């Protein structure tokens, strides 16, 4: 159990890293893009870049303030 937990912690740190909020924003932006494309018929190519830049700015702001 402890080994499984440490493996999980390693992969979490490997992929997600220091700020989980960035990962949440990326996943949410991709989900919203898929909904806009498939349900609303909007070719929302601009949404993910905008969200990524916003997530990076938010993460940097948090890191430099704490």
């Amino acid at each position: 159990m402890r080994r499984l937990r440490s493996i999980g912690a390693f992969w979490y740190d490997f992929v997600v890293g220091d700020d989980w909020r960035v990962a949440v924003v990326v996943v949410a932006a991709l989900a919203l893009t898929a909904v806009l494309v498939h349900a609303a018929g909007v070719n929302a190519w601009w949404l993910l870049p905008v969200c990524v830049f916003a997530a990076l700015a938010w993460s940097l702001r948090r890191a430099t303030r704490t």
Partner: protein
Amino acid sequence: MTALPLILTVFVACAVEAIEALTIVLAAGLTREWRSTFQGMAVALVVLAAIVAALGPTITLLPLTALRLVVGALLAIFGLQWLRKAILRATGYKSLHDEASAYLREVAAAKAAAASSRGRVHDWYAFTLSFKGVLLEGLEVVFIVITFGANQRNVGAAVIGAAAAVVVVAVTGVLVRAPLAKVPENAMKFVVGIMLTSFGIFWGAEGAGVSWPGQDAALLVLVPVVALVSLGYTVLLRRPRAVQPASAPTSEEVTSS
């Protein structure tokens, strides 16, 4: 898209990881014992090759849309990690990665550790130090090789880029017999962060069903835009610190890698 951008991106990303692995291998080999160090390195390389051989062909069997969605998300998250650290380093909020000081830390730890042998391994400390260093740095290489290669349906080209980087760094390390501290590693990490994030955005959005204006040519705009935004954030974060007196270190400064 041709294989050249793929090979170049993988080459630069893998060179950065290979430089960090080289530092650890040199510390183990020069301080402890070369034979056990090479054994650890060889076992790690076999494990990494097995992961690529197992996952590479398997992952390419997935439908391209699903693959691009998942891999794009992972690459964007992974790339933003690199980019975030690179910007924090460039603006002074996080200490620069320094191979020379990393090497000295590893050497001090290697000198202090007791010698013990297990089976055919004469120096277990040198073996494990080398094995862990190569495996952990190599996992990032494997991640990049598989994600880039599978998305482009060209794992072979990605492997060529990675292998070339490892060979160039290894040969240079053998010739210099010292950590490659003069390589602009932090700048390279900034570039890799930009590339990983750009490809992640491109493939992730495609996987979500987006049709990029200009198709693949959109990457030629996306990469410079990601670079410009990142540099803009760097400039914005630098300005207030330039006029402030030295402040207390943030929690980010304490963490490494």
